[in-house]
């Protein structure tokens, strides 16, 4: 800006001279926005009533700031918890962690029996997943279900929280029992991916029930009755679990859009 506003125009502007047309006013205001010198000149030539009015406004704003409500304290960690987890998940997660610890205690007492920790590992995340997206356990379900982030995004966030809570006790138990991580981690991930995949078709709650139920009927119950170690949790089946986990995760990612349609 090389040309400053002529004193005459500035004076006309401050008094609201009707001879100044819209275009002229607009030019002056654009210049004033970018030129501190001209703003200072404007302040100097401003008539008395205007400066008095501005002072009054300033006093009122200051008073409003002093007497008005305090700005709300930001509670970032609470907001983070609200966006990722759900209060109603807590009892489920406590139950699962307790079950893993109980299984660990039994395994320590009866090392010759089939390992309960390994039998429980695949289905440990499922109970949490079933309750994470269930009409019955989530009181705000009807409101959240119709929102943009519903379905896929909330489900994945909650699944991540569930895995973050369920996997550490499994890891601890597996480490203390001296089993290879592949035997509890891979089945847990495989079943989580399978629940997500099937959940897109028939609903997560039903998917978790079907998968968890089948695992109990086909693998856990016979193992408990016969006291034989099922082949599925022997170290020799690790390659199979690797393939299952990779394929399951890939399919779950591929069919991820199913959850969007499942209103």
């Amino acid at each position, binding site marked *: 800006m090389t040309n400053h506003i002529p004193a005459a125009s500035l004076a006309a502007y401050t008094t609201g001279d009707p001879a100044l047309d819209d275009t002229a006013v607009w030019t002056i205001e654009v210049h004033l926005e970018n030129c501190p010198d001209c703003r200072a000149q404007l302040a100097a030539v401003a008539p008395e009533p205007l400066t008095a009015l501005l002072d009054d406004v300033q006093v009122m704003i200051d008073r409003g700031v002093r007497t008005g409500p305090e700005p*709300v304290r930001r509670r970032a960690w*609470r*907001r983070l918890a*609200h*966006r990722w987890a759900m*209060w109603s998940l807590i009892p489920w997660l406590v139950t699962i962690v307790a079950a893993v610890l109980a299984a660990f205690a039994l395994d320590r007492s009866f090392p010759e029996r089939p390992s309960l920790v390994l039998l429980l590992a695949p289905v440990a995340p499922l109970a949490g997943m079933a309750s994470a997206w269930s009409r019955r356990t*989530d*009181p*705000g*379900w*009807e*409101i*959240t*279900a*119709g*929102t*943009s*982030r*519903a379905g896929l995004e*909330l489900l994945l966030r909650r699944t991540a929280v569930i895995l973050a809570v369920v996997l550490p006790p499994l890891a601890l138990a597996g480490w203390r029992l001296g089993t290879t991580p592949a035997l509890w981690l891979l089945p847990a991930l495989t079943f989580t991916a399978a629940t997500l995949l099937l959940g897109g078709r028939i609903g997560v709650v039903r998917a978790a029930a079907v998968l968890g139920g089948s695992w109990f009927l086909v693998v856990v119950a016979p193992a408990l009755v016969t006291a034989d170690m099922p082949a599925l949790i022997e170290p020799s089946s690790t390659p199979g679990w690797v393939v299952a986990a990779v394929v399951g995760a890939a399919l779950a990612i591929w069919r991820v*859009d199913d959850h*969007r*349609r499942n*209103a």
Partner: protein
Amino acid sequence: MVRMVTDTELRPSTTAWPVETEQLRVKAGRHLAVDGLDLRLGVGVHGLLGPNGAGKTTLMRALSTVERPSGGRLRLLGEDVTNGRALRPLRSRLGYLPQHFGFYPRFTVREYVEYVAWLREMPRADIPEAVQRAVERVGLTDRADSRLKALSGGMLRRVGIAQAIVNGPAVLLLDEPTVGLDPEQRVEFRTLLRELGQDSCVLVSTHLVEDVVAACSDVVLVDKGRLVWQGVPADLTRLGEQGGVGDSAAERGYSTLLANHRSAA
């Protein structure tokens, strides 16, 4: 305060009707609660009237995209709700207060409204201001930092209204919003409704005929999942002048319409 205006806000409306259904069928459990409903709603406040079991709540759930229609067509803001890709942007332009407002008791009013604003994918920078405004509009400013479990039924209902309007929805669905409100709050709520109805499509389901007459620009009467009558409140009142059962002209008009429809069926 200058803010970015998104292209969705600037896009001209390409549809005549924010809500448009054609032979819509929606199931509630196994029962077909909405059975072949044809409805077109424009901008304004629409009162949804009907006896118990008429399918009002099921219709609201379908319009809020919570329940999938089992047949027919449902277009909201020009988008077909069965189109998975369009659903996410569409949902950020809807507001919904369910009949049973389930809430998280440990949230404060502000946290809850903010959570819903986030769920509806409002721009991050706009959320605090929008939350404050929504809470002020329902008259809960002094309780904004109370936990939801400490609020009375009427206050909770107002929190429900605040969460429904926080994102400035183009289609707002309120299922029995006046339950638990005292007479003074109901009058204030009607004023709010008229304000909201100036530039968005508001559908209010209610049993209170006087609420509809006072605050709505359009009346939709349904029975057994079908549309019985659609018109302006003045017509409902005029019908009531010719007889019928009820304490006010509008109530008599309502009962006359229902009786005529049932005898014709």
